């Protein structure tokens, strides 16, 4: 039990790195995903096509490959990003594509009568989207968003290949050094803790945004 004490500090530090990557990515992905979703529904063909290709690439190739690409290929092109920025870039690009598809489906699920009522009341397109469509969309996308957000927490562990000391890498380092599996168990508990909190937060959000439903 004594050992748990000196495991805990590196594992907590690793959790800090994991949370940092997760939170920053999440905060970036929300607006970017929404913008990409609106772009996918744009009346300009070229905008739609560019976004379709982007989403196809991001969803059609492994996140690990994208991560390695950003990490190794960009420096070859003369762009050297700090590790954390490279990881953020890769995660944000990837998850923006997934969130865009969730938001797009949510926007398309709103009855067209809502647009017609807004039109008749003289609302502009931005007013209609912001006050009428998006608030209703939010309620509908919360369950799939919750899933993707939990995936993101777990996917942050991929950065261990970039030699960043996230939770998983911190655990593995101790396991290899001490031939003791406990740090993996502790890491699993930490991941579970994070996903548990997220599940709870999303449940609360669903209740909040669904308060107008019966």
């Amino acid at each position, binding site marked *: 039990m004594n050992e748990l004490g000196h495991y805990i500090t590196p594992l907590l530090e690793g959790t800090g790195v994991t949370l940092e990557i997760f939170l920053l990515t999440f905060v970036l992905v929300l607006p970017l995903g929404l913008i990409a979703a609106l772009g996918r529904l744009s009346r300009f063909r070229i905008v739609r096509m560019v976004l379709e290709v982007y989403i196809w690439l991001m969803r059609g190739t492994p996140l690990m490959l994208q991560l390695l690409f950003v990490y190794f290929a960009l420096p070859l092109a003369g762009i050297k990003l700090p590790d954390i920025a490279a990881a953020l870039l890769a995660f944000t690009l990837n998850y923006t594509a997934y969130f865009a598809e969730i938001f797009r489906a949510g926007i398309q699920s709103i*009855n067209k*009568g*809502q647009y*017609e*009522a*807004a*039109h*008749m*009341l*003289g*609302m502009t397109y931005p*007013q209609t989207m912001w*006050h*009428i469509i998006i*608030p*209703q969309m939010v*309620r509908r996308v919360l369950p799939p968003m919750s899933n993707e957000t939990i995936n993101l927490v777990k996917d942050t562990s991929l950065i261990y290949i970039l030699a960043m000391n996230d939770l998983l890498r911190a655990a593995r380092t101790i396991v290899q050094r001490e031939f003791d599996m406990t740090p993996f168990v502790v890491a699993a508990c930490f991941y579970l803790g994070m996903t548990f909190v997220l599940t709870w937060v999303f449940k609360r959000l669903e209740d909040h*945004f669904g*308060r*107008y*439903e*019966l």
Partner: protein
Amino acid sequence: MAKKDYMVRMRNIRKSYGENTVLKNIDLDVKKGEVLAIIGPSGSGKSTLLRCLNHLESIDSGTIEVVGETFATDDGYGSASYVSPKEERKFLGYMGMVFQQFNLFPHMTVMENLIKAPMLVQKKSREEILPLAQSLLEKVGLSDKADSYPGRLSGGQQQRVAIARALCMQPEIMLFDEPTSALDPELTGEVLRTMRQLAEEHMTMLVVTHEMNFAREVANKVMFMADGFVVEQGTPEEVFGNPQQERTRSFLHNML
């Protein structure tokens, strides 16, 4: 009669969906304070006519004047265009619309449904618009529902909120597209009563309806449409009492 006494004038309106010509040279005049009932079998183009008037759809050719101003016009070669989106707001402000499916905003309370557009579009403050909104809710008999969400109301109540929401923008003309068709029969009365009251206050109204009693008793003018044509129009006495066209007679026969 001066031009501006006409609240709505549509001339030579044509509209097609692909090969299907839905409106075939429709003319329509509605004067201030008039109630026009538009009747006819389903698929005859009644909804499309209203939706072209408020630019939810676009006409292919013809002209539309609203409150004496040109809203859509012909270029003389058979293709028509509406005013710019910026100007359009003014015209939409002249018209309120009530839909068959109510189309209330489900995520807002009844009161928010009423005051949202006046605040956003007319830039009124909440305090400015609240008295009107409250009096309209009272008028449709739903003062006690101000803080309810639409999902908790009956269909009849929802439709009355929809009428109040449209009125809260203080339109000159009210358009109704089968406002009672989605309602259980026992709920149509309360909505028709509200519409009747509006007519008594001399609101200019265009009402697409299957409620023949309403058309007969409340409308000043009845227009019977079939297959994209105006088959017959006149006073309710003329159209219901002494229809000139066989189509009108058989339609009315089937409705009774």
